[in-house]
C-alpha cells in the first residue's frame, strides 16, 4: 500500500502495543503452530491477500491472521467447514475451550521457532552492484513481493542479497532466484516533494527487473 492516501496519522491511542487483546497473541501462536506442525496448506501471507480489498483494509492485523489460519487448515483438510462454527455455538452455550497439556511438545515447538533458513549464496546473478535496472511493468494475478509503487521505475542495484524461492509462483514454491537490494530516488517514484529527496530501498527478485 506504499503511497496510498487518506489513512491519517500513524500514532493513535494504544498503537504502541503489540496487541490490543489477548486473543490476538493466541491467534499469532495458532498460526505459528499450524506452520510448525505442517497442518495447514499454503502461505498465510499470500492467503491474507485474498481478502477483498475493502475487508483487508478494514480488518485488524490479527483478524487477518485468524482468517488466513482458518483457510490454511480448511485447504489442508485438517478442519472442515462447520468445525469452527460449531465450536462458536458451543462456547456461546457456555462450554469452555478444552485443555490438554503436553510439556515435551511445548518445549519442541519453542525450539522449532529458532530454526531459520537464510538466503542461499548466489551462484549466478544477472545484475551486479551499481547496475541500473527498471522494475518491469506488471500486474500479477496473485501473490507478489513487488510493490505497485516501484513498477516501471528505474533504480540502482546496491547489493546482491543471495538466492531465495521465487514467491510469486506457488506461492513460495518457485525456483531459486537472485534477490537484490535496489535503491530508488524518491523523485523517480513519487515525483517532486516538499520534503526534498530521499532514497527508498527494496529487496527485489531478479525476474521483477530488466536492464535500464
Amino acid at each position, binding site marked *: *500500500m*506504499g503511497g*496510498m*492516501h487518506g489513512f491519517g*496519522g*500513524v*500514532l*493513535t491511542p494504544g*498503537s*504502541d502495543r*503489540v*496487541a*490490543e*487483546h489477548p*486473543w*490476538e*497473541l*493466541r491467534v499469532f*501462536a*495458532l498460526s*505459528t*503452530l499450524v506452520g510448525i506442525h505442517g*497442518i495447514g496448506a499454503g502461505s498465510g501471507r499470500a492467503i*491474507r491477500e485474498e481478502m477483498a480489498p475493502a*475487508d483487508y483494509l*478494514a480488518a*485488524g*492485523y490479527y483478524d487477518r491472521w*485468524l482468517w488466513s*489460519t482458518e483457510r490454511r*487448515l480448511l485447504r489442508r483438510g485438517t*478442519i472442515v467447514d462447520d*468445525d*469452527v*462454527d460449531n465450536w*462458536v455455538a458451543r*462456547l456461546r452455550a457456555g462450554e469452555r*475451550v*478444552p485443555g*490438554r497439556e*503436553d*510439556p515435551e*511438545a*511445548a518445549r519442541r515447538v*519453542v525450539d522449532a*521457532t529458532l530454526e*531459520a533458513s537464510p*538466503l542461499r549464496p548466489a551462484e549466478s546473478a544477472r545484475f551486479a552492484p551499481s547496475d541500473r535496472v527498471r522494475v518491469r511493468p506488471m500486474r500479477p494475478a496473485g501473490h507478489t513481493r513487488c*510493490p505497485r509503487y516501484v513498477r516501471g521505475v528505474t533504480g540502482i542495484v546496491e547489493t546482491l*542479497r543471495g538466492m*531465495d524461492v521465487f514467491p510469486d509462483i506457488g506461492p513460495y514454491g518457485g525456483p531459486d532466484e537472485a534477490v537484490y*537490494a535496489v535503491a530508488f530516488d524518491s523523485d523517480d517514484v513519487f515525483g517532486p516533494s516538499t*520534503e*526534498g529527496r*530521499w*532514497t*527508498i*530501498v*527494496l529487496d527485489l*527478485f531478479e525476474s521483477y527487473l530488466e536492464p535500464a
Partner: protein
Amino acid sequence: MTRDHRHGPDDELALRAAALEAVLVEKGLLSTDQIDAIVERYERDLGPQNGARVVARAWVDPAYRDRLRADATAAIAELGFGGFEGATMVALENTPDVHNVVVCTLCSCYPWPVLGLPPTWYKSPAYRARVVAEPRSVLREFGIELPAEARIRVWDSTSEVRYLVVPQRPAGTEGMGEEALAGLVTRDSMIGTGLARSPGA
C-alpha cells in the same frame, strides 16, 4: 484504542479465535501448553531488549561492529538471537548524514528475534502507506526533526531479509558500560522512527 470498520466486534473475534483453538485441541493436533509457550516466548523472551544488546555491543566494541556490518545474522547469533523472521539480518547504521527507517509496505515483516512482535502502528495502513512517500512528515509525528541535509533511506522489507537499525550513540555516553547503554536503545530507534535516548533523559 477504538478501531473503526472492524470485521466484527472484538468479542466476536475473541470467540472465533477461542473456537479455533478448541477445534485444534479437541482434534488432538495442539496442546494448550504449546499455545501458551509460543505466546510467552514472543511476549516475554523476544523484544527490543535483545536488539538493544546488539546495538550497545556495536557501540562499545569496534570488532563486533565490523562483524555486524559484514554479516549481521552471524553477529546477532553470537548474542544468542535468531530464528523465525530473523534468518537473514542486515544492520543499518545511522550517521549524522544518513538516517535509516524500516517498513514493510506489503504486510508487516519485522525482525522478531531482536525486536519481538511489531507494535500496532507498524502494521497500520497509515505507516505502511506513508513512510515511503512522506518520511519526514511521518518521523515528525514520532517527534524526530532531522537536519535538512540528512539523507533518509527508507527500507521496504519486501524479501525475507530483515533489518535492524543501529541508532547513533548519544553524546555524553563515553564512560557508560554496555548494559547502561542498552538501556538507552529504544524499540523505535531500532526501527528508525526514534533516536536513542540521551542519558538522564
